[in-house]
């Protein structure tokens, strides 16, 4: 876990009050760290607790015990026996990876055009993209559903994957904000060397924009991974196409007695996300930051 954090602003006390201030500072230091530790415990307890529950017997999981009487790691094996979890996992990965790849393919050029090319209607287009980004998906749900249903694509994840071929408003927004930070001089230099816009994008901009692209990609990936509404809408009739979230929600309705299994499945659903996070923490935090405070 590397800290990406810059040095916090420290306030230098004026000399006469230094000693008293130092003592006060020490107290404050202890106070702040105690609060932080208490909060960290609160954030972590649910996870630790869930892991413990997932290792109990199903009877004990219904009691108010905190600690397993006996350990049952085989609960995790059971989860695989009673659900097609690998299938859900595969679907979720396919969905998240394809959608991310296609989205980047279609959104990066658009973001580049919005950030660096001059054309009439650029601002208007950007406004439209912000509107699309802000639009609750429920607004267009019904007509889109009808469109996909008429073409026989409901019951699969295609209705969720295909649109990513045509750009994602949020990613375009995010990438544009990032590309704005690339100095124009680099692009001009490339043009002097005789590069067209596409070559400039691929040769010069892409390498420089890697952190932004990583962030946009991660967002899409996590969005798809966690998505419940989309798969519920389009795939609930076909169990073969279910994702983890959908499988988990319905796993509960079938196995709600076996809380130990339900919780084990929940832990299994959360685990991959956490692994990905530790590999991509830096890009992620940068990405989140980018969404909030540019300009």
């Amino acid at each position, binding site marked *: 876990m590397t800290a990406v954090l810059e040095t916090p602003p420290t306030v230098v006390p004026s000399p006469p009050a230094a000693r008293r201030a130092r003592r006060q500072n020490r107290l404050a230091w202890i106070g702040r760290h105690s609060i932080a530790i208490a909060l960290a415990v609160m954030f972590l307890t649910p996870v630790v607790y869930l892991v413990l529950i997932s290792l109990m017997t199903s009877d004990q999981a219904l009691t108010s015990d905190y600690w397993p009487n006996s350990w049952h790691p085989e609960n995790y094996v059971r989860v695989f026996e009673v659900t097609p979890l690998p299938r859900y996992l595969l679907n979720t990965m396919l969905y998240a990876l394809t959608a991310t790849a296609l989205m980047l393919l279609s959104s990066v050029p658009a973001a580049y055009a919005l950030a660096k090319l001059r054309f009439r209607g650029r601002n208007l287009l950007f406004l439209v993209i912000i509107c699309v980004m802000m639009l609750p998906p429920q607004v267009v749900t019904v007509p889109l559903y*009808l469109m996909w*249903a*008429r*073409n*026989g*694509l409901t019951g699969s994840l295609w209705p969720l994957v*295909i649109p990513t071929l045509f750009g994602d408003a949020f990613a375009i927004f995010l990438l544009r904000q990032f590309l704005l930070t690339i100095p124009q001089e680099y692009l001009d230099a490339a043009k002097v060397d005789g590069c067209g816009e596409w070559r400039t994008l691929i040769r010069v901009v892409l390498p420089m924009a890697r952190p932004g692209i990583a962030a946009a990609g991660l967002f899409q990936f996590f969005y798809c991974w966690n998505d419940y509404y989309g798969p519920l809408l389009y795939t609930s009739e076909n169990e073969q196409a279910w994702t983890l979230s959908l499988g988990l929600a319905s796993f509960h309705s*079938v196995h*709600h007695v076996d809380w130990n299994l339900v919780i084990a499945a929940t832990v299994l659903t959360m685990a991959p996300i956490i692994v990905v996070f530790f590999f991509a923490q830096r890009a992620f935090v940068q990405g989140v930051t980018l969404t909030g405070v540019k300009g």
Partner: protein
Amino acid sequence: MNTRIPRALFALGTAGVLTVGCTPAAQETKIAEPGAEVSGTVELWHFFTEREAAAIDTVVKEFETTHPKVKVTIKSGQDDSKVTQAIGAGNGPDIGLSYSTDIVGKFCSSGAWVDLTPYLTRDKVDLSGLNPTTRQYTEYGGKRCAMPFLADAYGMFYNKELFAKAGIAGPPKTLDELAAAAKKLTVRNPDGSLKRVGFLPLFDFYENAPSHLAPAVGATWLTADGKSAIGADPAWKTLLTWQKSLVDWYGYENLQKFRAGLGDEFSADNAFQKGQVAINVDAEYRLAFLADQAPELSYGVAPLPTTDPARYGGGYVTGNIVGISKNAKNPEAAWALIKYLTTDDNTIVKLANALRNLPTTTAATADPALKVDPAFKTFLDIFANPNSSTTPPSQSGPAYQETFQTFLTGWQAGKVSDLDAGLAEADKQVNSVMTLGG
């Protein structure tokens, strides 16, 4: 998955052009000559999962051996919404099997399921062999677009051991007796909270839906012209006043708290199975759960208590229904399978034995191969009782019941001060929601 790509591209091509909803035109039902052999594939969607789905598979296998030219593909775990959406999108399954009689109104009136009368006439199927209530909930507006596939009858389960302890001789037969027994059977903790409840009267508890309790007072839902009859029917007021006074006896808060600690209905922790609730309204399928999950429990079953002794013995009846989509690809083979599943007495007995549900034909009910014990017999009797009733089919499906249910949750929480005004308001809401669907 790959075969879908060309269709996906097609989808994109047409997406921009499509503006107006255009459901495929209903096909004229052209039916084959009598005696023609059926062939081809049939797609069957049903809602069952796990053990019950396996029972369906077995019976369908047998159908395939008797109809060697037909191949049946089954999709399990499909709810009504999915079937509706598939039919609306023009790719409905040949056969849909639903757990809810509430869709019949919509499916018949819109033609989403085809009228089965031509097939019935051609094959000379005698519908008088069907239980009358099941006949009622499978047609709408004079159109028979569904067939009943097993049935459920609702009655009362009571815990014999607790009854003996409380000194209650037998099952209560009137609502007043039920309330009295419920109070006697209830045990409180020293702090006043509930330890055991005689009868848990909340309308949103397990199977206590108003439709299941309506036969106790003989309450009606809809007028002949399809408007809400709730406000005008004094029977509802009787039921609601009775229920509220029992709720108040317990204390609404106490009941809520008690209920929050109970297990899920379809789990081994079902409150009746655990002895936490002494009397429970439930249907015959509970017998299979009891045998499986609580074999030690000593229980009895009886019809629902009533206000009028003349109505005693009846109860709420419902069941699964099955029909043919208007865009079925192979309606002839679909009908052959439906006929096999719903009119062949041997098959019905087999299914009833496997699922522990009620057989829908009189002949199957009398069949010696049907496994009948005294408890199951009680439900067969409720099923056959002329006082039994069901919820009327409506074009807007279950919306009217769900709307009333919402009113009831407010009512039992004490949020309705004037019952008459409240029921009038409920009428308005129901009528509004009735125009909504369809």
